[in-house]
């Protein structure tokens, strides 16, 4: 009984800490922003790219230090998953919103492109390249080399015959 309530209590404490972390306004916290730029500045100057995990870990470290509530970024991701919240939206700072394919406008004569966010124009990108401003080019993040460590699936199906193979078989049968 006491063990049960203890573990329940600790879950509640951790959960409320993650709720606090989840709603914390890092964007308006100047102390955090200054600290963050001192971390990611050198990485970016060195030509590296800053991934979401780096920023997330910095947030978790800062939050733990300021509030005294010990949390981790991995713990936060697990907490979000356990609560059905999915991937944190702030973890996709460079990703464009995915278009809604169920939008009725997809059936219009314009091919549904009316409300599409406009990517940077070809000439604008060419300008950035020719002026040596590659770091300003969007969608140019660092993807690690390497192979997937997970076990690939096993083939279960035989490929259907192609239409022309079936037709040739049919005509010679």
């Amino acid at each position, binding site marked *: 009984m006491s063990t049960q309530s203890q573990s329940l209590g600790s879950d509640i404490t951790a959960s409320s800490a993650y709720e606090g972390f989840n709603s914390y306004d890092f964007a308006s916290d100047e102390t955090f922003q200054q600290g963050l730029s001192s971390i990611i500045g050198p990485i970016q100057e060195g030509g590296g790219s800053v991934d979401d995990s780096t920023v997330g870990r910095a947030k978790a470290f800062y939050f733990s230090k300021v509030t005294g509530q010990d949390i981790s970024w991995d713990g936060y991701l697990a907490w979000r998953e356990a609560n059905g919240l999915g*991937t944190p939206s702030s973890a996709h700072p460079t990703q464009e919103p995915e278009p809604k394919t169920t939008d009725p406008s997809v059936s219009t004569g314009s*091919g549904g492109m009316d409300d599409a966010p406009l990517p940077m124009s070809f000439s604008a990108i060419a300008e950035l390249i020719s002026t040596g401003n590659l770091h300003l080019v969007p969608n140019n993040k660092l*993807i690690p080399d390497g192979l997937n460590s997970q076990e690939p699936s096993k083939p279960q199906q035989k490929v259907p015959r192609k239409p022309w193979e079936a037709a040739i078989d049919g005509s010679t049968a």
Partner: protein
Amino acid sequence: MQARPPPTVLRTVPFAHYSVAWSPFHPNLIALASAANFGLVGNGRLHLASIGAMSPEAHLNKSYDTQDGLYDSAWSEIHENQIVTASGDGSLKLWDITLNVSIHTYPSPDLPIRAWHEHTREAFSVDWSNIEKELFASSSWDGTIKIWSPDRPSSIRTIAAHSTCAYQALFSPHSPHHIVSCSTDGTLKIFDLRTPTPAPGSGPLAAPAPAALTVPAQGTEVLSLDWNKYRPFTIACGGVDRRVTIWDCRMVNSAGPGAAQVGGLLQSEMRGHEYAVRKVQWSPHHADIIASASYDMTCRVWTTSAAPPQPTLRSIHDLHTEFVVGCAWSLFEEGVLASCSWDCSVHVYRPDIM
């Protein structure tokens, strides 16, 4: 003119497409090879989507990010969940589409299950053999064609096909011995895989491999080609001169191994595209139907017959708002066509042909 139903549309902003390919296993599954920033610089993305002409819904199932733009993809013919991609950095990657991004590995992206990096310039096309199903081929701006097996760590064979860009290479659907490529140099070249590859030369000055048949197809760059599925050794190609031309290349088969001919018989030509033709593909269901995609922002369907009347334009799809760079016929739904574009959208529809 009777109004056609609108296409089913899937958008992948900000990734502009380079090719579309239907799964040979799953009726409504397509793969889109794409690149951010028009392929000039930046990441690539392989999109996997469920989409059909009869359904207004298109669903993006999954995507994989790559360092450099993706120019082409080819589904495995022996594994329903695997697909190979060709990238602007010259690399080829094999993906298993059942492997998912997990919250526990986030933000690490999903990685390929195999990768090869032998091409010294952009890898621009990949094709899985429909006859020797354990083989696939790639072509590159480095001028070579390479033959691969997914289980081998390096290529099985390198053919120094052209001294300039080899834009596309395709295995014959009828002969296990033949592969055809097209190039900046204006030619189609058919190679007989029974002819031994010359000993490796020194770097870029290596002697080109002897082609069994060289077809001086067009005066300028030939960007795309396809084998007719019902008429062995009939090949269509398209490129910068805006024409689609059809070549009877049966002479390659009668001459036997070791021959190196120049020729090909021009059977017919299709004029109408206002800019370069970027992709051609014959119907998998009909000997006389071909689709062409162009920088003029249209995808057109033609009927071709060797005898008069000459090829006839049957349909123009003009709803894209940028270069149309790829088109592919459904293997399962007869008469259904997908076209993809730099406007970051793929359209699936049933062109009004008959």
